[in-house]
């Protein structure tokens, strides 16, 4: 039994945070004057089924970034002038129609200077045509897609910061291949995925990669997102004798799978889980050490930039960021700020600068390739209480994958 105190102290702080945020929003609206501020608008899911994802990865980073910029006196413009940010935020209520209309509203009614993207692959695609039409740079953060290059051609103001399913699965199969060659695992893989865009895209990307690496996918099932009981699936997967268990899942499933695996004492040498395994609360939810569990993302614990970012996030938001998307989204915001500092508020110029410029961000020196961020950790693993990056293996700061996974 291990508790997860972290969150409760967070919620009291948060309640205070909400109240002060409302106060700030009200006073900011009262003091509204277009020339003295830069308006940044966004619509994210604050209610409905997508609120959980947005609340972990997207919204806290927007808040952190705005807070830091305004603390420092505002966004810098060419010539040294500084203007504070004024935020216009909407709740898309996890509905595609709402998010589309909110972006129309931000662009044509509120006429904000810049628009930040919503959470999720589907919603980023839903707003992409509008962002391109109205000429806003679209920094698609929380969106995993293999078709980013097509989309950049179609919508030339779009930027993609989270890579594609194929990137994650080929990094994983490389690790598996090496482990098999070292005799640590057999050639069987059991794979489950949640039946929605994210799970299916990754499962689809994983199949050819794993097969090319000579693995047999002994169990391959998709389950509905509302599933809460994983006893049967884990039993079936275990019965195949596969040494590697891969699950492309969302947090509720990731947590449920972890608990069930612990109860059933299921300890495959490779345990790879989806979104949620890279949350700081994960070891608390698992109720014990989780060394060896792998997932998407990861961080380099020795990177000073990253350590500092995590400390600031915790200080301002009241809880630690996740180990995957948060830092990428924060980096995209830093790039936006630096572009504005170099070229001003002209959106076309900012778009060009984002596309071609080089930036100093929390990820280090960052430059986009074909409007896509490629400087991403594809695979991470829990080692000694930290979720460290293990792939790409040849990148500086990568840890060595620790296999087999430690027993629960």
């Amino acid at each position, binding site marked *: *039994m*291990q*508790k*997860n*105190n972290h*969150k*409760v102290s967070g*919620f009291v702080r*948060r*309640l205070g945070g*909400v109240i002060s945020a409302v106060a700030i929003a009200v006073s900011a609206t009262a003091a509204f004057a277009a020339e003295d501020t830069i308006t940044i608008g966004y619509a994210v*899911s*604050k*209610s*409905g*089924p997508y*609120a*959980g994802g*947005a*609340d*972990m990865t997207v919204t806290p980073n927007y808040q952190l970034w705005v807070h830091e910029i305004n603390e420092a006196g505002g966004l810098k413009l060419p010539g040294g002038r500084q203007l504070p940010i004024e935020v216009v935020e909407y709740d898309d209520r996890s509905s595609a129609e709402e998010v589309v209309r909110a972006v129309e509203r931000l662009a044509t009614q509120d006429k904000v200077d810049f628009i930040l993207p919503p959470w999720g692959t589907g919603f980023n695609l839903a707003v992409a045509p509008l962002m391109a039409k109205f000429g806003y740079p679209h920094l698609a953060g929380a969106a995993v897609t293999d078709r980013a290059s097509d989309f950049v051609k179609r919508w030339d103001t779009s930027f993609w910061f989270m890579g594609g399913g194929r990137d994650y699965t080929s990094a994983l199969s490389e690790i598996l291949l090496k482990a098999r060659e070292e005799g640590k695992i057999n050639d069987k893989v059991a794979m*489950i995925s949640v*039946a929605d865009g994210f799970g299916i895209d990754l499962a689809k990307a994983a199949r050819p990669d794993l097969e090319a690496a000579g693995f047999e996918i002994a169990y391959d*099932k*998709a*389950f*509905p997102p*509302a*599933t*809460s*009981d994983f*006893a*049967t*699936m884990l*039993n*079936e997967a275990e019965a195949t004798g596969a040494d590697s268990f891969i699950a492309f899942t969302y*947090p*509720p499933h990731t*947590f*449920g799978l972890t*608990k*069930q695996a*612990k*109860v*059933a*004492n299921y300890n495959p040498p490779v345990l790879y889980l989806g979104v*949620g395994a890279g*949350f700081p*609360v994960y070891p*608390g*939810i*698992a*109720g*014990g050490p989780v060394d060896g569990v792998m997932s998407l993302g990861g961080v380099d614990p020795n990177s000073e930039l990253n350590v500092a970012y995590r400390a600031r996030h915790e200080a301002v938001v009241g809880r630690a960021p996740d180990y995957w998307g948060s830092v990428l989204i924060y980096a995209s915001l830093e790039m936006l700020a630096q572009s504005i500092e170099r070229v001003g508020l002209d959106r076309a110029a900012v778009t060009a600068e984002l596309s071609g410029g080089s930036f100093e961000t929390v990820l280090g020196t960052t430059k986009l390739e074909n409007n896509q961020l490629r400087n991403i950790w594809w695979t991470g693993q829990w080692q000694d209480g930290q979720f460290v990056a293990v792939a790409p293996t040849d990148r500086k700061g990568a840890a060595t994958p620790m296999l087999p996974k430690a027993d629960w």
Partner: protein
Amino acid sequence: MLEHLINGLVLGGTYALIAMGLTLQYGIARIMNLAFGDTIIVACFGTFVLFSGYQLSPLLALFVLVPAGFALSYAIFFFIMQPLVERAPHTAALEVDSILVTFGLLFVIQGILLVVFGGAYTSYSFLNTPVDLLGTTVAANRLSALVLALVLGAILIFVLFRTRWGMMLRAVALAPESAPLYGIDVTRVARYAFSIGGALAASGGVVISMYQTFTATAGVVFTMKALIVVILGGKGSVFGALVAGLILGVVETFVAAYIDPGLTLAATYTVFLGILLIRPTGLFGKGG
């Protein structure tokens, strides 16, 4: 085979547990409570706060949150539902009113939870230990849901069929129009039925929070699942809710094991639709 049956019954225990409260609220108090699942979520967060903030075991939290659930539901009925019940010319009007008003209530509860806890996924670890049940390993926290459902179900059935008070509840469920003729205060009975329903929802929330990840907005998922079970079992029938919940759990598990985990929910709804077509008032329903 036995293994799947056991896993299915354990899963079904959760469904039965959440459905019993709703069947009392709907079958006896005649309130179609769309905010039922949000009551469950409130209890989930309550347990989480008591456990993480005050180190109170969720099993002890039951003794705090179940009476709290009763009191909250009592207040809701007294202040919101009772005026509607009293002004409604017939049951159909009350049904529309209660759908609309509990739809509003759902948003209020959800909104408060969002402000206080945010939208994040919440989960913690308690009693996540293996228990050997006839050779099948099940999680102790999941098993506790089944045990609680069976115990509470048995108590309720005993009260309903073996006590004078239970007879009054059943009389109101069957014939709300003629019950006053026998000196039964229908509104009072309805108020207690609604409150007991709320207490059951709270007990479900406490247990569920031990193994299921919850968010402020997940209430509607529980409401819909509970409604399916209630309608399948026949509204107002505690025994029906118990049986229907267990059946759905077993069906889902067998489909996951022998056909495809992707079809579990499709199978649930197929069974549900199929049974309704054969028995239009559910398994143990006494007429529409």
